[in-house]
């Protein structure tokens, strides 16, 4: 589902990515980060890689690096569930390991629900999912002070379709860098 097109991004572009994730006052909440965010950024052919030792060519500490090393920035949930399943635990464990390497990075965990629930309940369900992911990350050693949560209920679906495959994609929590 999330094929990553890994590419070089400059430090300047990284700053843009991080800025885009920071909450802005008086503005709409940022949409979930696109699965291929790094490639969506304008590329600078003259960019230099700051750490030539990084074999995957990603800027260490960047969102792209986070996604590449953790396997994903998001986990899925079953219908009306906030249980962190085995696949999700594996992703969150690797997210926690990455966060251990970059202790200054703060994160926001977004909780989302599919459209097949009522609006207010789904806000609460999204909150439960974000909290469940947060709690797992905390159990892996990420300081809770670094983790903010927000629920979007069913307001920000990722997949457009009205079918189970789309609903499954939309039942998610997403770890974004910055809070």
């Amino acid at each position, binding site marked *: 589902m999330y094929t990553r097109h890994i590419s070089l991004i400059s430090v300047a572009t990284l700053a843009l990515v991080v800025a885009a994730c920071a909450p802005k006052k008086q503005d709409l909440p940022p*949409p979930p980060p696109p699965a291929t965010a790094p490639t969506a950024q304008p590329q600078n052919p003259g960019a230099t890689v700051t750490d030539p030792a990084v074999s995957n060519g990603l800027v260490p500490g960047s969102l792209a690096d986070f996604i590449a090393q953790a396997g994903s920035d998001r986990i899925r949930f079953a219908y*009306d569930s906030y249980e962190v399943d085995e696949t999700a635990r594996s992703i969150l464990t690797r997210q926690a390991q990455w966060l251990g390497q970059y202790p200054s990075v703060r994160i926001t965990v977004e909780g989302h629900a599919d459209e097949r629930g009522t609006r*207010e*309940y789904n*806000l*609460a*369900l999204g909150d439960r999912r974000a909290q469940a992911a947060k709690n797992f990350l905390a159990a892996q050693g990420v300081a809770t002070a670094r983790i903010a949560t927000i629920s979007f209920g069913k307001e920000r679906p990722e997949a457009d379709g009205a079918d189970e495959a789309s609903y499954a994609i939309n039942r998610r929590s997403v770890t974004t860098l910055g809070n």
Partner: protein
Amino acid sequence: MRIPFIFATALLAVTPAAAQLRVDINSGISQPMPIAVPAMPASAPANTAAGTTAELGVRIAEVIANDLGSSGLFRPIAPAAYTTIVTPADVLRPQFAAWRTVAAQALITGNVTANPDGGITLACYAYDVFGGDELTRQGFVTTAAGWRRAAHKCADLVYSRLTGESGYFDSRIVYISETGPRSKRIKRLAVMDQDGAGHRFLTSGQNLVLTPRFSPSQQQITYMSFEGNRPRVWLYQLGTAQQQAIGQFQGMSFAPRFSPTGQSLVFSMAVGGNTDIYTLDIASKRLTRLTSQPGIETSPSYSPDGSKIVFESDRGGAQQLYVMNADGTGQSRISFGDGRAASPVWSPRGDLIAFTRFGGGRFAINVIRPDGSGERQLTNGYQDEAATWSPNGRVIMYQRSGRGGPPSLWSVDLSGQNERKLRTPLDGSDPAWSPLLD
């Protein structure tokens, strides 16, 4: 914006004869009463800021006919079928024979006069055509710009006289106007009259906003906004357009509604993954927690007398309806049966609770008595939700989405008949009906 209304009953101080013409609201939908609402003649033609009195007489008759027709209880006869033109003299002495030929059961007529202060007076009369009797009459004095409200008040007068229930036409709807792709939906607070007129946006769409609800005074709206990425409950002052968060709480606050006095709010707050119901006294900012179960407790709604609160909880495994005393004591489950029960809202008459019943791929609007008896299904859709009651507890508005389609606003009679789609400039969700306007 308040429009001062003077009920000028003294102006027309003749007691109408006690006529028997009556709409049975329970069977009325299948047998709507044919009515005539001819253009109201101008006895003293004059200009007003909203047009000539003759023009207003035409438009007011149209608004009244549309109101009464939309209830499903009345069937306005097409003006093209009329065999007579109403003269100023006919308003007090209708040509009943001519109205009998088109089989009108009731005749709604009147006239519009310009007042020296620039305002208008609508004199509203209703007659029993076959009995040849007057049913009711009332005068409404308002600004010229307030002519639509005068028409709604006339329609409410007729509805009330013929059904025995209070009207609901002089009321408004606040809702969420939606547009844009699903992943980046732009949502705005919007208000309009119950017939869709006077539509206006209250917010710009910069912040995601949800679930607006009127205060009992209709002067405030409580809603949820994601302003600053801090999802919480806000208040909007209709008079000043001022928007203010109700407070800075530990977790997300949402699902707000006013208490019947308007002095406090009831809403949910999610703290550490646990959602409970709280009240906030608006003046003192005193916060009181009403539930303490580990489950999700949300969508609270007061009974009209303020003594009880209906809400939903998944403490039993999935969403079901519960009723508790206003202080949080005596919580008991009222919904059973197949599927989930969610988003309850108490009727302004107190006798019923409307809610979303879902399961098996369908979302319906149902009603149930507060003691859990008499559950009845009113609608059935791919996704019907967010019920709200007309001020008289007779009509329910809700949000309907087809599979993969955008939401729109619909209304349905308490009998389950007369489903109607409301016209809104963009897509619509989360409707909330105001009380009758002052």
